[in-house]
């Protein structure tokens, strides 16, 4: 079956709709009380609509580049193309060489044989620093993981799984960097956003430690799966910031716009929590109402739109989108836990649902769900749509632009 752009878009649309309907049906079945009909319909329709629009924009961009080339290939060709794309730049010439030779190989089995063997070769291409350096780095990582678990577990028992996972993931990134780079060192593609995200990740870990030291019973809200998820997301943020893929670091404007937007969102989040329950003067109420309602949408949509328009490409907007989300996650999480402690000390309520009297530890579960789940998913969706519209606006403004 030939995968045309229209067919891929159709399949993607149906997958999104079906998965969301199933998910929402399960959520409703377990909801107590059920939401009002109007709210339920809105929640059922709006998110998948936004996701479908965003997914179609991404597919359209992808199809204008590698997607159309890959659709014309057979499976061995696609497999080898994907493997070549994962190679470090200095080895990519060899990957292209294997791809070019595959074009000369005739016969289905011979092509599979050539492609699989070439993919195997790519896994074992000599690392830049040599195998001993790689083995040394891997050894250091294994020792670090073995030490981190008991050491952190003794000080903060609820963080043992997180410590092992985070150390292991960051260690794996270091080993990968040693294998890929000629001189293993962070590239720091954009210093200011990199420092912002790195600081955010450090602050997130610090506030989690403080939270669990003050409220040891909160460890029940960080089960192993959640701890691994937290570690994976924070390590992922660190990876984007320190060793971003090439395509993420090509536009300095996009990364700076994204980081600035994340700071604005974090400030909005802090402000929204601090103003709750207070009685500011009327002009300030009106201003806050305007800011608090529009800011969450604007901080994701606007930077991606502006970057897409300024960079005259969807990719530039996408870079801003990824940087916004990458910086937003640790910043909001680092704000949530201390604010949750403060709010709970005042009236025993949770940060996100001021009507519910609940254990303070539940703030940890809420922070994970919102800062590492709902905010990034919805934010990225809005940002992708902004990037797509920004790039489109550019094309309309410059009709003779061949790109």
């Amino acid at each position, binding site marked *: 079956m030939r995968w045309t752009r229209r067919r891929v878009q159709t399949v993607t649309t149906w997958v999104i709709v079906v998965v969301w309907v199933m998910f929402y049906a399960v959520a409703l079945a377990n909801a107590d009380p059920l939401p009002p009909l109007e709210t339920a319909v809105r929640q059922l329709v709006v998110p998948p609509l936004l996701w479908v629009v965003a997914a179609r924009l991404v597919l359209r961009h992808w199809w204008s580049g590698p997607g159309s080339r890959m659709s014309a290939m057979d499976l061995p060709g696609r497999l080898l193309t994907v493997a070549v794309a994962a190679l470090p730049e200095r080895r990519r010439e060899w990957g292209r060489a*294997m*791809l*070019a030779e595959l074009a000369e190989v005739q016969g289905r089995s011979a092509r599979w044989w050539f492609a699989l*063997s070439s993919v195997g070769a790519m896994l074992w291409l000599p690392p830049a620093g040599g195998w001993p350096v790689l083995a040394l780095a891997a050894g250091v990582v294994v020792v670090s993981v073995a030490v981190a678990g008991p050491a952190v577990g003794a000080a903060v028992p609820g963080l043992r799984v997180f410590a092992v996972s985070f150390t292991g993931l960051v260690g794996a990134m270091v080993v990968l960097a040693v294998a890929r780079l000629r001189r293993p060192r962070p590239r720091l593609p954009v210093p200011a956003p990199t420092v912002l995200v790195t600081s955010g990740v450090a602050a997130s870990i610090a506030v989690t430690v403080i939270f669990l030291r003050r409220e040891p019973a909160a460890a029940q809200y960080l089960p192993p799966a959640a701890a691994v998820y937290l570690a994976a997301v924070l390590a992922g943020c660190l990876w984007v910031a320190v060793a971003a893929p090439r395509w993420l670091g090509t536009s300095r404007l996009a990364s700076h716009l994204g980081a600035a937007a994340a700071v604005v969102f974090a400030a909005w989040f802090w402000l929204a929590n601090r103003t709750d329950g207070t009685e500011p003067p009327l002009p300030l109420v009106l201003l806050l109402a305007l800011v608090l309602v529009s800011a969450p949408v604007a901080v994701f949509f606007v930077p991606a739109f502006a970057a897409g328009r300024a960079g005259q490409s969807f990719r530039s907007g996408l870079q801003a989108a990824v940087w916004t989300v990458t910086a937003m996650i640790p910043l909001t999480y680092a704000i949530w836990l201390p604010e949750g402690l403060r709010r709970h000390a005042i009236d025993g309520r949770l940060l996100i649902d001021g009507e519910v009297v609940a254990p303070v530890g539940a703030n940890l579960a809420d922070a994970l769900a919102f800062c590492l789940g709902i905010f990034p998913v919805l934010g990225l969706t809005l940002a992708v749509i902004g990037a797509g519209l920004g790039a489109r606006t550019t094309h309309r403004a410059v009709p003779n632009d061949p790109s």
Partner: protein
Amino acid sequence: MTRSRRPSAQTTAVVLALAEKPTAWRYGYELCQQLGLKPGSLYPILVRLADRGLLETTWDTDVPAGRPPRHLYRLTGSGRALATELAAATAATATRRSGPKGSPNERWQGA
């Protein structure tokens, strides 16, 4: 870097195959077929030879329309010197196997 370890049999075969026509550019798939090597074995050898300055590479842009440019390989001066050394050692080994045993301590440059 000078290494005292003898190149593997596969590396030796690749170097000697390239040395058959030292000035000719060769394709990777062609070498695979000639030597009966998998690409997964051949390409890491070619990468190591190129990293050590024993192999030079270029792109063949004279290909049919719609086909990507192909990578071409041939030995450098150092590579040809290594090939000469390996050929002599291979011959010497064959002689030793058929005659009295000896253990000359040869040093292999690069491969």
